[in-house]
């Protein structure tokens, strides 16, 4: 299982721990003015963990996921970067970008499978579930006999909590939650090492969503695969993922353990996202969200892409691009009283990075212990400086 945050090493762990490593991945959508949807993203997925990727629509999170599974189709194009896959059998790493068509066909679904957002569209409405399961095995395990296929499909349904008799059902005979379970069973059919889930619960209501998430966790513990979980709902990600990557305008702006990020968001954007939804049981107070809209990714972005929406922007932000660095929690973004509690007073900053000039001691607005106050008329908290961890 994943190590506890306290015991966490730096982000570049030993290769044995890692199942997927992406380095400097950039993707653009061709056009008169190409859209730079993913810009120089590096991340790694560790064996058995849930890595959450959060961000607004159009921030490139789905494009990144598609790139990792090499599912991009023109006009999308990977313009740079490497993606390495480390199999659990400890054989040589696979360079996903170098696979030829036949090898890629064998690789996909067997090693990396995907759960798409809309379970309604991911299933074929005119074919029974049994036949859709069979398609997977016919393609990838041609030596498997009809009875064995049927047997395995029933097992898979049972595994996700659906009666095996449903094998003869058609998708429209199932509820939304059941369909999503079927899609998950299909993704697990070939025991992949990585499952990419793109907004798997967005169309479901809270009760069903919780059931599906519990199910995903149970299966991960029983079978042992890694998950890349993509959603715009940060409260959900904090609940299910071990580590988080926050994306903005095609880049990762914050990357760390969920507990770290939840307790002390280091990037102003993460902070904004965390305070975009009211806490169910907390006191009522005014919330702001993140006013404004993301930049046009067709334009060249100079400096920090978040600058126009950032309440804390200062000198270098519009002109100098911030690189990912270890957060220095002075100044740290304080928390709305009663909103999100700090989990533990001291949180290690190991394995945590943020792309923001506020965390660069050389650039940070001077004068410790300084206080950056919030704009007048806002009840949002101030940023307090001078507390190093």
């Amino acid at each position, binding site marked *: 299982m994943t190590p506890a945050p306290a015991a966490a090493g730096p982000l570049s762990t030993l290769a044995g721990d890692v199942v997927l490593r992406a380095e400097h991945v950039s993707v653009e959508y061709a056009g008169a003015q190409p859209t730079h949807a993913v810009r120089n993203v590096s991340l790694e997925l560790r064996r058995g963990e849930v890595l959450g990727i959060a961000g*607004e629509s159009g921030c490139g999170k789905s494009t990144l996921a598609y790139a990792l599974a090499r599912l991009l189709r023109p006009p999308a194009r990977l313009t740079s970067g490497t993606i390495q896959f480390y199999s659990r059998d400890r054989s040589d790493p696979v360079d996903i970008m170098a696979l030829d068509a036949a090898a890629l066909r064998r690789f996909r679904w067997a090693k990396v499978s995907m759960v798409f957002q809309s379970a309604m569209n991911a299933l074929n409405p005119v074919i029974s579930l049994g036949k859709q399961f069979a398609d997977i095995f016919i393609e990838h395990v041609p030596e498997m006999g009809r009875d064995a296929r049927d047997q395995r499909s029933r097992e898979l349904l049972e595994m996700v909590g659906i009666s095996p008799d449903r094998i003869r059902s058609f998708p429209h005979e199932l509820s939304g939650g059941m369909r999503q379970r079927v899609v998950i069973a299909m993704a697990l059919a070939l025991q992949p090492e990585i499952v990419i889930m793109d907004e798997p619960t967005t169309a479901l209501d809270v*009760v069903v969503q919780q059931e599906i998430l519990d199910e995903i966790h149970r299966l991960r513990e029983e079978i042992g695969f890694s998950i890349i979980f993509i959603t715009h709902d940060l409260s959900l990600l904090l609940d299910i993922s071990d580590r988080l990557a926050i994306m903005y305008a095609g880049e990762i702006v914050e990357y760390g353990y969920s*507990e770290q990020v*939840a307790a002390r968001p280091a990037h102003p954007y993460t902070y904004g996202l965390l305070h975009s939804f009211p*806490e*169910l049981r907390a006191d009522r107070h005014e919330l702001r*969200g993140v006013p404004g809209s993301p930049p046009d990714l067709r334009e060249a972005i100079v400096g920090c892409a978040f600058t126009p929406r950032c309440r804390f922007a200062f000198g270098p932000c519009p002109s100098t691009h911030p690189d990912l660095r270890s957060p220095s929690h002075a100044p740290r973004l304080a928390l709305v009283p009663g909103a999100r509690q700090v989990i533990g007073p001291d949180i290690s900053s190991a394995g945590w990075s943020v792309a923001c000039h506020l965390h660069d001691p050389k650039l940070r607005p001077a004068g410790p212990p300084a206080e950056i106050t919030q704009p007048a008329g806002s009840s949002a908290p101030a940023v307090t400086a001078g507390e190093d961890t």
Partner: protein
Amino acid sequence: MSILEVRDLSVEFTQRGGPRLRAVDNVSFELRAGETLALVGESGSGKSTVARALCRLVAPSSGEVLLRGAPAGRRGRALRRYRREVQLVLQDPFASLNPSFSVEHHIRRPLRISGHPRAGIDQQIDQLLRSVNLSPPRVMAKKYPHELSGGQRQRVAIARALAPDPAVMLADEPVSMLDVSIRLEILNLLDALKRDRNLALLYITHDLATARHFSGRIMVMYRGEIVEYGPADEVILNPAHPYTELLESAVPRAAVTRDQLVVQRRERLQERKIAPPAERRELAADTGCRFRGRCPYAMEICTTHPPDFEVSPGHTARCWLRDPAGPAGRTA
């Protein structure tokens, strides 16, 4: 002041080869000027059908709707007058705006239909756009839906709903299609408009947290029935119906540690093993309490349909557990 009063509203749909489906079953409530009432429930509970019946996009099969004490118009001019007063904002701003017309057109139409003279209509459009914070209004007016972000589109939809100067606004999941980061802006806008224009707002949502934070009272709907009703804080912090409890417990909470999360997950999975939820839900009860198939506290008496019991002043729950004369205190 009560603006819209709904009495025993029911909506039935015919199903091919089956019995009629009662999507809304004897629902009664009132909307007051300057107040937000939230209607929450899971998908398929009938929330949207309530909104559609209130603006008469579907015909109620029985029940009464009173606007300022007078029965709502059913046809012709009276219906048009009623619709002008009761406006709807839909969930999906990508589908609810016509892609081939400008923003201006979307707002001019309802203004004209509700009898605004041609003279001064541009100023009125600008004022409406300004009231939903779309500025500069003259520039925004000329834009087409594809040039707008999701949040801006929803603002246009709100401006359009405001155009006939309604007394009642029905907002059906107005932010669920929008990014988390801009949801609050739209909700804050609706809240401000409600205050400034003294609107009666029905906020339909499956999100309990925003329901609590943006409304005075909450109604919880389950399979067509209002099972709990009361002041927002009361309903969320002291839920009286087991279904509300279930909804509330399913909301992800960030303030617990990961170890606790794992333990909670294991417990829930263990509980569900006893009765797989996907199947359990199919046990729709025709008589008695409709929730009893999923209810952890189900008792013998639950085969009889429960009435509304008052839990505290203004807070009611349709559950036998709340029967002051009954056998049951809460068991868990």
